[in-house]
């Protein structure tokens, strides 16, 4: 039992550790790097679930593209101690309560799930490219297309906001 769960246990420990380090690191760049590492460990969980396509896309999109942009922005604005924004105690208290409530919800969900160890999933084929593609373009073609239109609208909106205002 332990042997089967060993990869999961190692990955889970690393995920939790790196996620904590994102919050605890003093330098913003270190936080971002820990977040990238965290994405890799989550990618590892996808592999354990035999979702190879999801793993690859997760690494390419999150670790490879979005986090590069994060790092990019952080390098540009070069945050340091003097410029660090200080929040009032009220905001801190509110943030703690909100985060605590979220934690409560998540813990209750996990305890309801029962067995959290993925022991039998390595036989399923859901995560492979062929099966996923057939599902996406067969059963779920309408939501898929709607999502792509939504993304396109978001992209156009981003370009519009980013454009220089020539009138004023």
């Amino acid at each position: 039992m332990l042997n089967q769960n060993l990869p999961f246990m190692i990955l889970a420990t690393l995920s939790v550790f790196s996620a904590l380090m994102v919050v605890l690191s003093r330098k913003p760049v270190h936080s971002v790097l820990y977040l990238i590492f965290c994405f890799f460990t989550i990618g590892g969980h996808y592999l354990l679930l035999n979702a190879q396509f999801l793993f690859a896309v997760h690494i390419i999109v999150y670790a490879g593209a979005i986090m590069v942009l994060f790092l990019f922005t952080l390098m540009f604005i070069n945050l340091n101690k003097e410029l660090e924004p200080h929040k009032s105690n009220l905001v801190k208290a509110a943030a703690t309560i909100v985060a605590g409530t979220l934690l409560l919800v998540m813990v209750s969900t996990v305890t309801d799930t029962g067995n959290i160890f993925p022991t039998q999933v390595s036989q399923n084929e859901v995560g492979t490219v062929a099966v996923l593609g057939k599902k996406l373009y067969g059963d779920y073609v309408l939501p898929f297309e709607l999502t792509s239109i939504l993304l396109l609208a978001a992209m156009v909106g981003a370009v519009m906001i980013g454009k220089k205002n020539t009138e004023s």
Partner: protein
Amino acid sequence: MEFIIVKFVLVVVVFLVSLGIAAYSTYAERKIAAFLQDRVGPDRAGPFGLLQPVADGVKMFMKEEIIPTHADKGLFILGPSIMMMTACMTGVVIPWGSTLIINGTEYPVQITDLNIGILYIFGVVSIGVYGIMIGGWASNNKYSLMGAIRASSQMISYELAMGMAIIALVMTTGTLSIGEIVKQQQGMHWNVFVQPLGFVLFIVCAFAECNRTPFDLPECETELVGGYHTEYSSMKLGFYLFAEYINMFISSAIIASLYFGGYNFPFIDQLGLPHNVLTLLGTLIFFGKVFFFIFFFMWVRWTLPRFRYDQLMHVGWRVMIPLALFNILLTAVIVLWQNGQFN
């Protein structure tokens, strides 16, 4: 157990061959530069200067190691390590040859044929940019930071076009596994004839992803001293430079396998040779193709001048991406037409 031993041997061989070829690419680069500029090139160490890479390696190891006092030490070391690691990781999905039959068992000359092989390569390439970004930022130097930022924006921009060029290829081949793509190109059915535009887009993006001239703005000497590796010395600098040559070798191998038939060559079935001999011949021919593309990389470097930064972005976003989209559309229409959807 036998499986692990076979794979282990393959991994070690691929690793050593990559390093050896990268080392001798530095020598080839200097010889080709010399030839194109009507000079002699390195000729002191050994016959024809053949021991020059060894001498360079020893020099890199012996040099003093300097870490700037204001640098972020951990990240300063992490930068070149990531660069070297990602450069060596891509070799595992490339089919270096067909299969070898030893004692009746068939062994593929490929470390692993992932069914998401192409996506794996994309993943590794997209991580590779962190090596430059982290190194450039950790140096705490304005020129390094400029180089790092240029590198990341360039890689993001060209990754898009590269991905779209590959999408068109995947539409015609119908698979993401590189081993399968190579198998389909048996004889002279090379993908370059099916996807000429895709191939041109892919090779241009490969140049940009390897930071080779005319896209070597991250290390543009005239503006940025040494670019992202300005503060690096000794073997850490060596790792950065070496990783570039490994990347070039791997890119050549990917181009050769995706578009130029990999280990396939014309009249492969008419020769009537035993299977193992054909496999070895195929591997040799594959390396011939790879060497041609490495030469092509160098040829372009010593022929074309460097782009300006705004030109680079212009080409990336306004020429490459629309062309790649057009290529996808065209491929889709042709694939549908061949399947008889329009009748």
